[in-house]
């Protein structure tokens, strides 16, 4: 176990030496990885913040069921009990037309005679909350209700929140696809860089092979180089995100004072930050693995 760790330590040191030997190229590589990864991560951060705002909006599907103005009391009772029995219904509130009319008058501070309204224009209404957000179930429930006698109109409330969430979800998927494409680009770029590095170290690879090194031994320092590229790139990504957040929030603070409300952005959690670094390191590792493997394969062909 100690020898195994020592071997890896040795490879890590070799990886660090190679990075130091070409430190300008290495810094450029950190920047390339950092900037490339910052594109999807910034998008993800924005979506995450937008999702958090949309999640704060209490949302449940609500139906406003407006009844016929001429509906009889027995029919209202029948509808009330029918709604109560339905498993989709979570809460029911019945608003008699007289109460609604009084509330409206109080709100608008008007009297019917003065304003030329001689008759209560409002119908009796049920306001119900459903315990599902599934469109199919809601649509079927609404069409069942519409078939009942005494119901004039049914309005589904709160749909816009659902639409917003759907749009955010779609954008999230778009960003994941973009992220995957950019990571592929990163892998190609790192592979090319490490491939050039293998040319520099061709002598070392050749000597190592001749004196009995396994492919894993030869590849290991290159893999550590790729991991370090990924680590550096991941840290650059987090740095860029920090700069973007601080700059945005500075401006947002001023705007908040003018318009009110909270529009400042929250940063990624520690777990998410670690995840970004792991993704970058994985891209670095896989790229260097491919490059080193190719280099050894080429050399094997020469013998």
């Amino acid at each position, binding site marked *: 176990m100690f020898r195994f760790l*020592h071997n890896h330590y040795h490879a890590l040191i070799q990886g660090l030496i190679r990075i130091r030997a070409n430190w300008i190229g290495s810094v450029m590589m950190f920047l390339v990885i950092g900037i490339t990864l910052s594109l999807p991560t910034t998008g993800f951060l924005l979506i995450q913040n937008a999702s958090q705002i949309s999640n704060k909006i209490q949302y449940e599907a609500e139906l406003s069921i407006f009844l016929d103005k001429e509906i009889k009391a027995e029919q209202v009772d029948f509808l009330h009990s029918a709604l109560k029995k339905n498993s989709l219904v979570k809460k029911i509130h019945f608003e008699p037309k007289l109460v609604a009319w009084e509330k409206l008058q109080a709100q608008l501070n008007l009297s019917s005679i003065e304003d030329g309204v001689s008759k209560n224009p409002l119908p009796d209404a049920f306001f119900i909350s459903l315990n599902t957000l599934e469109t199919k179930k809601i649509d079927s429930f609404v069409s069942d209700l519409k078939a009942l006698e005494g119901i004039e109109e049914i309005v589904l409330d709160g749909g816009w929140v659902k639409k917003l969430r759907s749009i955010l979800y779609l954008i999230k998927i778009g960003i994941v696809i973009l992220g995957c494409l950019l990571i592929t680009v990163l892998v190609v770029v790192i592979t090319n860089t490490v491939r050039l590095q293998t040319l520099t170290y061709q002598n*070392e690879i050749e000597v190592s092979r*001749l*004196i*009995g090194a396994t492919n894993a031994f030869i590849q290991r320092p290159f893999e550590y180089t790729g991991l370090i590229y990924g680590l550096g790139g991941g840290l650059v990504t987090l740095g860029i995100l920090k700069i973007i957040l601080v700059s945005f929030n500075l401006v947002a603070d001023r705007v908040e004072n003018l318009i009110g409300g909270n529009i400042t952005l929250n940063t990624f959690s520690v777990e998410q930050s670690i995840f970004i670094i792991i993704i970058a390191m994985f891209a670095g590792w896989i790229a260097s693995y491919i490059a080193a493997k190719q280099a050894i394969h080429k050399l094997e062909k020469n*013998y």
Partner: protein
Amino acid sequence: MIKFTNVYKRYPGEMDVLQDISLAINAGELVFVTGSSGAGKSTLLKLISAVEKPTSGTIFFENQNLSYLKKNEMPFLRRKFGMIFQDHKLLYDRTCFDNVLLPLAINDSDPSDIGRRVRAALNKVGLLEKEKLMPITLSGGEQQRLAIARAIVSRPSVLIADEPTANLDRGYADEIMNIFYSFQQVGVTVIISSHEIPPTKMKYKELHISKGSLNNVPLLT
């Protein structure tokens, strides 16, 4: 220890570099592989050290048929040989110490013992005081001695040297040859390729190659 039977080696698009080679090398022997440039000396050494595989024929090393060796087993076999190349093949971005350390790192040697063994090998070739220097600062003879230190550090049972004195003047060449003789005297099999046999009082075997074929020369004393 090493046995060739009807070995042929052909590179793609070329004639046979080696033809019908049959030979036997016993443990502890000093063997000179001689011949002119392009005769096939280096190819023979590459076949012995399993760097290359024969096109046909069989090669046995310690009763193991190298033709049947799997690709992933080759590195472990090569570790049994100490290889010295004409162009040294040193790593010029590492110190002398780190160059000699490489085989031990490859061999997965005990880390606590590595320093001592590297210094012992450097001491053996008279380069202990230069362990921190870069190889580029050494003379040609010293570089070849460093290559020998790298070859012997993992205590191989066979030392294979491909024209180790080709680019050295007489003084340095004698020094290098004396190092090889000293290893042979302690039981190491030493195989050296050279255009001609250097003057020596040692008992040796000559394998003379001409145009890819072997002309056995009787053992001299």
